[in-house]
């Protein structure tokens, strides 16, 4: 989230975001007016609440008013798309999507800008019949070819080797698919230290372009083994995000008025940050409250 806040501070606009799925990074970037296009399978906060910025930009005339463009996918197809990008091939086949409105041509919100926008595939999907095994119809989903992948891991080597504890999600594929990868880490160490257990390393240094140490860089989301979710922060932000005015006020207070990440951490305070620390044997903090307010 630290990098997300900084993108907002730097006034980045017209971002073309791809997430699989998306959470607060998606909702806040949209709410801050930074996003032109988002391709994703989900934007939300799960049990903690709804993504009100996303909703405001979409529902009840939101799309027409803001010009925001959304492209719906699924977890599997989003994963296969970034896999295709990582493999340097134009598409992957899937047995998912058939029957749904996700591939309804009438609902392709990006249709009018495909072709003209070189970062988008010419069509959303293509249907194809298996020529090899008579397995019938499959859907071809186009590769994702990011300009930039932004990842946050527990440990990185100075040269860019990335080590992930817990779930790797699609980080490796995103880094491989992207032209440039920004790797932020809770701790940056000497490369030699990561050679003792190479099986724990997920991101090869050569595909990483920038390494930056950002302790508590994922706050308010958890980092496995280090700190848990800050539900109280989520509750406040989500409540503020319900309304444009209160959201802008929240954004001003928590992002725009703070010069940098350390100011953000200082504002949160030592007591709060330390209260999120994970039990080293559980990987999370069994004492944190996780109900939505």
């Amino acid at each position, binding site marked *: 989230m630290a990098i997300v806040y900084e993108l907002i501070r730097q006034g980045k606009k017209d971002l073309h975001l791809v997430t*699989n*799925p998306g*959470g607060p990074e998606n909702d806040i970037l949209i709410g801050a007016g930074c996003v032109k296009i988002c391709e*994703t*399978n*989900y*934007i939300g*906060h*799960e*049990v*903690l609440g709804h993504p009100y910025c*996303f909703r405001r930009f*979409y*529902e*009840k*005339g*939101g799309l027409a008013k803001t010009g925001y463009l959304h492209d*719906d*996918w*699924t*977890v*599997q*197809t989003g*994963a*296969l798309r970034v*896999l295709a990008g990582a493999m340097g091939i134009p598409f992957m086949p*899937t*047995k*998912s*999507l*058939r*029957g*749904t*409105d*996700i*591939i*309804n041509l009438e*609902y392709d*919100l990006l249709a009018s800008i495909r072709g003209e926008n070189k970062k988008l595939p010419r069509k959303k999907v293509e*249907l194809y019949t298996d020529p090899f095994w008579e397995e*019938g*119809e499959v*859907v071809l989903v186009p590769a994702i070819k990011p300009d930039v992948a932004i990842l946050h891991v527990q440990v990185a080597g100075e040269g860019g080797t990335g080590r992930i504890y*817990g*779930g*790797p*999600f*699609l980080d*490796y594929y995103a880094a491989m698919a992207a032209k440039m990868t920004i790797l932020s880490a809770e701790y940056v160490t000497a490369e030699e230290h990561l050679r003792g257990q190479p099986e724990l390393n997920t991101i090869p240094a050569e595909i990483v372009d920038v390494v930056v140490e950002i302790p508590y860089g994922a706050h308010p989301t*958890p980092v*496995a083994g280090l700190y*848990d*979710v800050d539900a109280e922060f989520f509750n406040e932000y989500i409540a503020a995000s319900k309304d444009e005015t209160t959201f802008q006020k929240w954004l001003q207070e928590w992002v725009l008025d703070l010069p940098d990440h350390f100011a953000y951490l200082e504002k949160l305070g030592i007591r709060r940050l330390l209260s999120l620390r*994970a039990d080293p044997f*559980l*990987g*999370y903090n069994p004492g944190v*409250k*996780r*109900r939505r307010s």
Partner: protein
Amino acid sequence: MPKLHYTPREAMAVAASRLIKNGETVIVGTGLPLVAAILAKHTHASDAILIMEAGPYDGYPLALPSCVADPRGFWRVPLICDPVQLMGQFLQKGRINVGLLGGAQVDKYGNINSTCIGDYRNPQVRLEGSGGASDIAALAQRTYIIIAHEKRRLVERVDYLTSPGWRCYRYQDREFIKREELGLRGGPEAVITTMGIMKFHEETKEMYVAEYYADLGITLEMIKENTGFAIDVSQAIPSAPPTEEELQVLRTIVDPEKIYMN
């Protein structure tokens, strides 16, 4: 023996958990599906293999995960996978026996909507999106849908077809055709609600009432009144209520913080 007190939400969680057979591989998203799956593991299905699309394979979490990426889900799993493996391989290859799904709307053919209420280009409510639900609905060996029983939720046709049921759209011409004509695997076998368990007619594939929570005072009239289409109640029988053990486990072990059971 004093009568057990429990809520319709608890009845729903217990009814869903009973549908998981021991030893089955189950894929779940967060929410009631996860609660039902963990309850099953603690009661009759201790050998069931729980999978969450974000990575944990064969999880048996100590504390209830509040999102698919929650570190709680990864506690002491034998294997951590990624979505390419779990959704692109396990699920797609047919190794998932059961998918448990939620949603905002379900129609009489078991199609689920978790995308928008109203028109896609200008909805009344924009919802979170499919997540992995659409893939699971298409590719699991069978699915169960868990949803509160309300007229605005159980509808004639969903506003947007996110996850395919028994009748869905052919891409080429938008014809509303049978699932098997599309070559999809499995299908929704039941819809578990806060009033009972619905299933789908063998031939018409339309939803009907199979069981209802008579013990809670639910009546077939109530079900008809709270369903957004004409639903057949002629085959409905009273549901076996939750046992004291199931409720005890649900309340004290599965979701003591009342994250989902509130």
